[in-house]
């Protein structure tokens, strides 16, 4: 068993256009999945995190309960099954009806899947916001929706930013499952390169290093953003302890 590092380097150079194409698709999947997953998570998280207001009409209460049930089912199913199976099932199920290509299907599925995780992250973030914030907004006459948008969401997102950002890293890696429906992301491209050259160890070593570079870069960017967001907070704490 020997790994030929020289060969690994030469195949990286030789097949760079294919690798590069795969990298672009993988990054696109991670970014789209995280952004749309975040938006889905906000909506679902709001439905699940919104306290039942005793002033609501019976109809509104029933509607909220129904919303809780549906969103609970969604989270249960999409967190409880592998994304690869979700991809295959949904892609082939809907293909005869809406005639979509694999990339479109992939974008939709990774967004829905990420949405289920984001919903749970944001729900906990919403619940971690001091109830006094909601009371103050109510006492001014703000509606539930206005309170969510202007007071609760900004704080919930800030509180859970590390977990939200982590989904980007997870998606960089997990998008490889989309090879099951022949999306030409990085892993799919690597398999093709490995197959044509009959060099598996070297090619997958290159692939692993490329993934590592992507996730490291993403982590670094997220850390920079997080530090910026927390700047005001740290100053406040310093002044208080001084």
């Amino acid at each position: 068993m020997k790994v030929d590092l020289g060969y690994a380097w030469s195949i990286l150079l030789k097949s760079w256009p294919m690798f590069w194409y795969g990298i672009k698709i993988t990054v696109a999947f991670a970014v789209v999945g995280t952004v749309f997953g975040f938006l889905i998570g906000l909506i679902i998280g709001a439905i699940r995190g919104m306290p039942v207001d005793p002033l609501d009409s019976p109809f509104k209460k029933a509607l909220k309960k129904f919303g809780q049930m549906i969103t609970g089912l969604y989270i249960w199913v999409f967190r409880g099954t592998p994304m690869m199976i979700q991809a295959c099932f949904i892609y082939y199920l809907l293909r005869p009806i809406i005639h979509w290509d694999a990339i479109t299907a992939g974008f939709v599925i990774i967004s829905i899947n990420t949405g289920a995780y984001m919903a749970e992250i944001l729900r906990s973030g919403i619940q971690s916001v001091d109830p006094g914030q909601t009371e103050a907004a109510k006492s001014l006459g703000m509606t539930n929706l206005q309170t969510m948008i202007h007071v609760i969401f900004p704080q919930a997102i800030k509180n859970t930013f590390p977990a939200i950002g982590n989904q980007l890293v997870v998606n960089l890696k997990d998008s490889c499952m989309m090879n099951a429906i022949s999306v030409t992301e990085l892993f799919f491209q690597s398999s093709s390169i490995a197959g044509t050259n009959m060099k598996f160890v070297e090619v997958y070593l290159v692939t692993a290093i490329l993934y590592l570079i992507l996730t490291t870069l993403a982590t670094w960017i997220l850390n920079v953003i997080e530090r910026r967001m927390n700047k005001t907070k740290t100053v406040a704490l310093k002044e208080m302890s001084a």
Partner: protein
Amino acid sequence: MMDPIIKVEHLKKHFGDLEVLDDIDFSVNKGEVISIIGSSGSGKSTLLRCINLLEIPDGGTISFHGKNILDKDRNLTDYRSKVGMVFQSFNLFNNKNVIDNCIIGQRQVLKRSKEEARKIAEGHLQRVGMSNFLNHASTKLSGGQKQRVAIARALSMDPEVLLFDEPTSALDPEMVGEVLEVMKDLARNGLTMVVVTHEMQFARDVSDRVIFMDKGVIAEQGTPEEVFENPKNERTRQFLSRYSSAGVSDKN
């Protein structure tokens, strides 16, 4: 006599088996300053929170200009914008700076223009002595500063009545004075106020009427002179003697 702004009748509230408010009747007239005193657990904060519907009463009526706000067809956001609230724990919006705390309600609820809302907010922040802090993060202020901003935020909505829920109880002693000064200024200028407080000196000097609550009922009410100098109820006497032995009434 004018019709009261707020009229509470037969108000009841319980948490589980605990009867917190039992058949409360009282009204708030325009320009009046009412202090509600009583020991912890007597139901005074719950009464205040019921008036703003942060707690939902189990029975009775709360009328605002003669209209029961517990009716199904009430306009809750409209009512709440006219009856402001200042909280014990300030509850400034952590994600907003000082001026934006005072603008958000005006923009969202009263639909005022940006310029108008800003001008009004600046006016009230100046009144509470916080005009040098307009762009400060609300989380960076001291307790007394936070509470003064919270008062400015409530005033920015032009409320007809302002409810204060133990506004100085969470403050360090040296900051109590600055908040009470602001409240005295508001009272002098004719703002209608209902203040739940442990500051007996304030209740005595500033109120038009004092309500003493005990075990979920209004045990006694009257002018500050009546309640403080000549309490009729035994429980009121006991309660006040604890404060006078702490030296509060000696100052007078």
